[in-house]
């Protein structure tokens, strides 16, 4: 588990550790003062988890504030030396990656010739995909070429992965090469 799991007080201290905020705190803002509003402070009871932004290659640190149900706020991680708590517009909105109504939430299948998606179970998807891979592979696998053992499957391609974690890209490369796939490409090319 990550070593920073901040409650709100710690969080304030943390933010206060950056020079700019520190000045404000020291200049007499009363932390205990509660605004007359009946609304609870937005991040009063959130769990804070550090992450790294999923967009460009700068690698800014972001704190994700969650409650039991959802992501309530995202902001720069002041401890991360790359961005020191600052973010651009994309990093700032990380929250909506979770909350967007457009997120896919179920596996979807489109049959040949069909006009629509159908919801399917994960098990069905995994089993069917594995079968398709095997059918294609068995039919087109090349064992030898001009006397050289080549063990390749040139009829399957793997595209993408620049947004995956290292551990995922490692397993993906291992699986695809293991299957004999040669058409392995991702966003670094385009």
């Amino acid at each position, binding site marked *: 588990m990550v070593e920073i799991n901040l409650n709100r007080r710690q969080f304030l201290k943390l933010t206060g550790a950056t020079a700019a905020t520190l000045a404000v705190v020291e200049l007499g803002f009363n932390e205990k003062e509660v605004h007359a509003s009946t609304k609870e402070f937005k991040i009063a009871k959130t769990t804070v988890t550090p992450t790294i932004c999923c967009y460009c290659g700068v690698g800014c640190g972001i704190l994700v504030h969650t409650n039991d149900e959802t992501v309530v706020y995202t902001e720069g991680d002041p401890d991360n030396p790359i961005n020191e708590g*600052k*973010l*651009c517009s994309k990093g700032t909105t990380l929250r909506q990656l979770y909350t967007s109504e457009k997120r896919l939430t179920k596996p979807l299948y489109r049959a040949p010739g069909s006009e629509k998606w159908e919801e399917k179970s994960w098990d069905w998807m995994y089993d069917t995909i594995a079968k398709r891979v095997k059918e294609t592979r068995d039919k087109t696998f090349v064992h030898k070429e001009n006397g050289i053992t080549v063990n390749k499957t040139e009829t399957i391609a793997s595209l993408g992965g620049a947004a995956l974690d290292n551990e995922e890209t490692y397993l993906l490369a291992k699986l695809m090469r293991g299957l004999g796939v040669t058409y392995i490409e991702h966003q670094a090319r385009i």
Partner: protein
Amino acid sequence: MATKYVKYVDVTKCDGCRACMVACKNWNDLPAEPQDFLGSMQSHANVTADTWNVLTFVEHENSKGNLDYLFRHSSCFHCTDAACEKVCPENAISYTDKGMVVVDQEVCVGCGYCEQNCPFDVIHLKTYKDENGKEYRKAHKCTMCTDRLDEGLQPACVTTCHTGAMEFGEKDEIISKAEKRVKEIKERYPNAQVYNPQGVGGTHTIYVLAEKPSVYGLPENPKVPTSAVLWKDYAQPIGKAMVGGVAMALAGAFVANKFFDKKNGGQEEDGGGNHE
């Protein structure tokens, strides 16, 4: 008097990333409002009741004949003498102990005088429907993240700004910082200046501008409309002394209508926008 804090916006350090715009929406849970294409990178023509700050984009050929691409974080100025506060017949608009101008939507009746009289056009009404389908309106604008200030945190827009274009701090220090910065950039931006208009008693957002205010669509010398001063500082107290609360509200609405309804030939003075 308590120490005064202000937001500092040095537009010459802004790189136009617009994190301030979304940080505001993210903290304040404001909805997106799709806009028509405006012909530039600017997303909204102006701030609205659901978009409390807008980054403006101006392509400007400067006095040396070079192209400047000018960005400005545009939001409520939190005037020291706020016209919106003066004209509000319901006293729904008030100053916080830190000098920020805030609207109490529980009290607001949606009359719109604040919107009509704001010299910067940064307070706007949002229309809601009640359960019977009846429409009602409330005024909204930047709160300077008063809830965050009360917890010792800076406004969300300032917190996210990566270039140092925005800071939050003690007023006198910020003003001297702004003046120093203007001297530093005079060579590159001969028209650079601090924008902290005195016609509204100074503001709680202090700008360093690279160009004359008008280049950014800002009034050169904004003032609280005389009518608003008359109303708040003379008519309303007299009225209050003369009649009870309920009658006051009614009378207020009547008087305010007469004074402030600019659209129907009311007051016209240097209180508003040459920034359309």
